[in-house]
């Protein structure tokens, strides 16, 4: 009963998630192919990188009337600087514009993201329904986990007389029954991890609000009541001070004062390490928006670390192209599990009706 209903309620949404998730595994490659992932020009040997202040001015000149929210450095593209602009510092994320600039020439390279993959992403993340849509999909993901666990319990009575990997083709129903069991059994750990990390990701905004209300509020206490900065400090000087505070780490992104990732008085420079794991575990350094002096630097709380580590485990983007291909195959196998489960339920219902009329017993487990 638990298995049937937790699956049935979430089936359509899980199919949506699996189907939209499939191209998203390769979003980097697809964006590149369609021209939404601009590449820098080959740098001249010995060329010096432009100042970030200059790139910031270029970005603002490119989108007049807008403000900078974030400047970001892709770990795999050190020669590209990505600037987020929006109509105000805490503007709607959907209104943000991302543009890439060449780190050596400050030349605009083109918009980042957008295109068809953005539609897949929105469908996958919140179905264009904002935060409620996101939390709803999180609930569907939770039902998916319930369905998996209850499926493990049911696996015993249904397969105890069969050897592992039995695939029969006596009838269409039995063939799909065997496929449902086999694919469900072999993908279980992966599906649990991808499902659970997906659910964690739907809580990102909630966790961020929690961090802002507690840790960040505590860090910026000395600034309570002060007006927001009028003239922002030099970005280059600010970034330099952040780097000195977190030796051995690189800048992942800088959040401008007033954006969702910082206070209204501070730049928050998020630093990353250089291994697959530490590059996800960001460390924020808060710097005064007017002077660029370091105010505080603390590690993120456990729940935000969990969120950051859960992201690669959901995306499958941390083990090269072979891992992405395996991710896609496991995703397709999960689609078959969900589809065959729905089919088996429909067939059982139909049988149930005809048997109920004829007064015959229903098919039992371990038949």
């Amino acid at each position: 009963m638990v298995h049937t209903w937790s699956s049935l309620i979430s089936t359509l949404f899980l199919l949506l998630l699996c189907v939209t998730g499939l191209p998203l595994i390769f979003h980097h490659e697809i964006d590149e192919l369609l021209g939404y992932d601009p590449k820098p020009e080959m740098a001249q040997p010995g060329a010096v990188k432009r100042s970030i202040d200059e790139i910031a001015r270029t970005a603002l000149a490119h989108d007049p009337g807008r403000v900078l929210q974030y400047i970001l450095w892709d770990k795999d593209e050190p020669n590209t600087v990505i600037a987020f602009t929006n109509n105000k510092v805490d503007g709607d994320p959907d209104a943000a514009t991302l543009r890439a600039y060449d780190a050596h020439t400050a030349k605009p390279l083109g918009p980042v993201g957008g295109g068809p993959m953005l539609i897949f992403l929105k469908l996958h993340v919140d179905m264009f329904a904002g935060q409620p849509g996101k939390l709803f999909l999180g609930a569907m993901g939770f039902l998916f986990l319930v369905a998996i666990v209850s499926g493990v319990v049911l696996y015993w009575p249904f397969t105890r007389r069969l050897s592992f990997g039995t695939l029969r083709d006596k009838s269409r129903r039995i063939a799909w029954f065997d496929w449902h069991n086999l694919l469900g059994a072999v993908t279980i750990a992966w599906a649990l991890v991808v499902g659970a990390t997906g659910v964690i990701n739907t809580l990102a905004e909630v966790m961020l609000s929690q961090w802002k209300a507690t840790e960040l509020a505590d860090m910026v206490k000395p600034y309570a009541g002060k007006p927001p900065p009028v003239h922002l400090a030099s970005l280059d000087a600010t970034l330099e001070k952040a780097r000195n505070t977190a030796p051995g780490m690189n800048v992942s992104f800088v959040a401008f004062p007033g954006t969702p990732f910082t206070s209204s008085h501070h730049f928050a420079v998020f630093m990353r390490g250089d291994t697959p794991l530490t590059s996800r575990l960001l460390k924020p350094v808060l710097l005064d928006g007017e002077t660029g002096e370091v105010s505080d630097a603390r590690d993120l709380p456990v729940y935000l670390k969990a969120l950051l580590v859960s992201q690669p485990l959901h995306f499958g983007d941390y083990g090269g192209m072979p891992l992405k291909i395996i991710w896609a195959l496991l995703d397709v196998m999960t689609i078959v599990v969900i589809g065959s489960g729905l089919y088996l339920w429909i067939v059982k219902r139909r049988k149930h009706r005809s048997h109920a009329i004829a007064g015959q017993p229903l098919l039992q487990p371990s038949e």
Partner: protein
Amino acid sequence: MTAARKSRSSGNWWTVYGGPLLLGVLAIAGLLSALLSAGPGRYFSWLALGAPVALTAWFFARRKRG
């Protein structure tokens, strides 16, 4: 269905859950290894997470017909 039925009549814990459990432990190890080590960990993750796909293909290739 009796054709596929094994001589044992009830099955035991290990024959039912052993295979999926081993694959599951292998998959978790693979998921973590690529996160913790960029070189060998990555290669191991391909094997560990590729195993369920390969095993499914193998079961499909040797399935009984009729």
